[in-house]
């Protein structure tokens, strides 16, 4: 595949990836700090290049339901928003999960709660990984740390979404959305033809041919015995994801005494803190999470038997740290450090937290 070097914001990389990955439709609503996604799409006019539909909806409620409609007829559809908008989408997300529809939803997280701030945050971890909407369901959650990953995870997102018939969330943050970095983009992947759609999404409601009964896309099943069976099927799917789809990057973990567990922007800050720690003689590794669901439970359990302690670094009051503790089962000290409300921690702060909370711990 031919590679072309570009300089782009993370938000623009999402839009560029949508066009180049054969996306059929994007439906969105402006919100800071992710408005460049739709702005880039509208400026690029992909309907003239690939036939992709781009529409500004009247609300996030509407855009996620447009995604539900497009996904239900087998199309590759996506939306993006930031925290308050993603809260409005929770209804649509649980319906997508219940009806087992593939789609990509990008959350460029900002500080909360409420209207909060427009600065970067990672305080939507619980909402992204623990359901968010009602009922027992899971989104597949990818956490990009670079502009390149913003681009790449759109392609990966389609693969996962259609393989498992499940909505995929790309959980980014305001820093990665706004930062400009170089990235490599590839050739245009053509949108699916009608024949390809029928092959790749045979379950969809794309119009009933004469040789089959009608398809129904719904999350409703009034017979609770059948609804329980449907839930069993969903849970089996989530367990399969945990078995096969866990992704992480282990940096210097093999002989480390201490581990920073982090994702997204925090993982990049932790990397600098790791270097600062090395200068002081500490052996620090980083476990950078790429999938937040499925969560790398086994890797954390394994590391917890080898190291003297772990510091969960996240721009929240302590959300991911709960999953780290559950996976480690308290086999080593596990503490949390993070600034929040739109403040980004510095590498120095992170290293000091490691020293105070774990290294010098009595």
């Amino acid at each position: 595949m031919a590679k072309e070097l570009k300089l782009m914001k993370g938000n623009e990389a999402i839009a560029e990836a949508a066009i180049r990955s054969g996306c059929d439709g994007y439906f969105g609503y402006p919100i800071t700090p992710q408005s460049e996604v739709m702005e880039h799409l509208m400026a690029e006019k992909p309907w003239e290049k690939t036939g992709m539909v781009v529409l500004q909806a009247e609300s996030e409620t509407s855009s996620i339901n447009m995604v539900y409609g497009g996904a239900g007829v087998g199309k590759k559809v996506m939306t993006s928003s930031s925290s308050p908008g993603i809260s409005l989408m929770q209804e649509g997300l649980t319906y997508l999960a219940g009806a087992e529809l593939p789609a990509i939803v990008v959350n460029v997280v900002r500080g909360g709660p409420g209207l909060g701030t427009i600065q970067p945050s990672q305080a939507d971890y619980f909402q992204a990984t623990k359901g968010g909407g009602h009922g027992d369901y899971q989104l597949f959650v990818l956490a990009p740390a670079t502009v390149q990953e913003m681009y790449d995870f759109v392609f990966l997102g389609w693969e996962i979404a259609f393989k498992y018939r499940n909505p995929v969330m790309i959980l980014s943050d305001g820093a990665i959305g706004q930062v400009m970095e170089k990235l490599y983009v590839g050739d245009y992947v053509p949108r699916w033809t009608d024949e390809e759609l029928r092959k790749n999404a045979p379950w969809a409601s794309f119009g009933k041919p004469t040789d089959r009964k009608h398809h129904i896309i719904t999350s409703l099943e009034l017979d609770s015995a059948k609804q329980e069976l449907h839930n069993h099927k969903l849970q089996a799917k989530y367990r399969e994801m945990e078995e096969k789809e866990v992704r992480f990057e282990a940096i210097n973990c093999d002989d480390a005494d201490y581990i920073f567990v982090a994702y997204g922007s925090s993982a990049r800050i932790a990397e600098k803190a790791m270097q600062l720690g090395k200068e002081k003689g500490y052996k620090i590794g980083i476990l950078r999470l790429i999938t937040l669901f499925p969560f790398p439970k086994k890797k954390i359990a394994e590391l917890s038997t080898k190291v003297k302690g772990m510091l969960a670094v996240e721009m929240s009051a302590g959300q991911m740290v709960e999953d780290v503790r559950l996976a480690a089962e308290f086999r080593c000290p596990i503490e949390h450090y993070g600034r929040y409300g739109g403040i980004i921690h510095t590498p120095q702060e992170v290293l000091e937290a490691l020293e105070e909370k774990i290294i010098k711990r009595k």
Partner: protein
Amino acid sequence: MFNQDIVKPENLVYKRTEVLTDNVMHYCPGCGHGTTHRIIAEVIEEMGIQDKAICVAPVGCSVLAYNYFEVDSLGAAHGRAPALATAIQRLNPDKHTFTYQGDGDLAAIGTAETIHACNRGENIVIIFINNGIYGMTGGQMAPTTLVGMKTATTPYGRNVELNGYPLQITELLAQLPGTYLVTRQSVHTAAAVRKTKKAIRQAFENQKNKKGTSFVEVVSNCNSGWKMPATKANEWMVENMFAKYPIGDIKVDGELVQK
């Protein structure tokens, strides 16, 4: 004469359209949903668009509409059907996407989706069943409940100071430039059924010609919610509902009908 003696192809004067499934409908006897379903299905059959039709079902009494139409379908969240239909039709401009919605779904929780889909002139057909009450949840007040009408949540009658006024959403939608056909019909007599079928046919023809949004309201009864026998409910509907929601075309070929 035994049944098998008369059930022969040469004696066939009426048969159920194949665009309806064999499922027994759950609707109350005397309710307008069954009739409206049938004429939509007949129009789809007569136009030969079964393979292109995509039904978006609402939440409410007709939440299971997709069990009766033999067309590919989606069940929307409450009120969101026009958003689904917007995307489906834009992604498939040659299909026939239609929504089927009740008054609570379309004119209360889904007001924003309805108004904006119509205002964008989405090339969709919206069938709106207005019976002035929430049937499925047990007869609560709807946005279209008449003043003074008793419901489970207006046990002393709808009081405008407490509950506001009945919403004439159809008249409101007719004001939007995106709507091409806006009409109000009923299905309580044979003549009314024929007129409604004609209106629904026109709506799907408009869609075929990519004219924008076609909106067909069907004023119906809810004998169980209104707590009346079916025939009495129809009489009450003619006397009271038609006074607030008069039958007839409101906008034809993109032009408001002068009254």
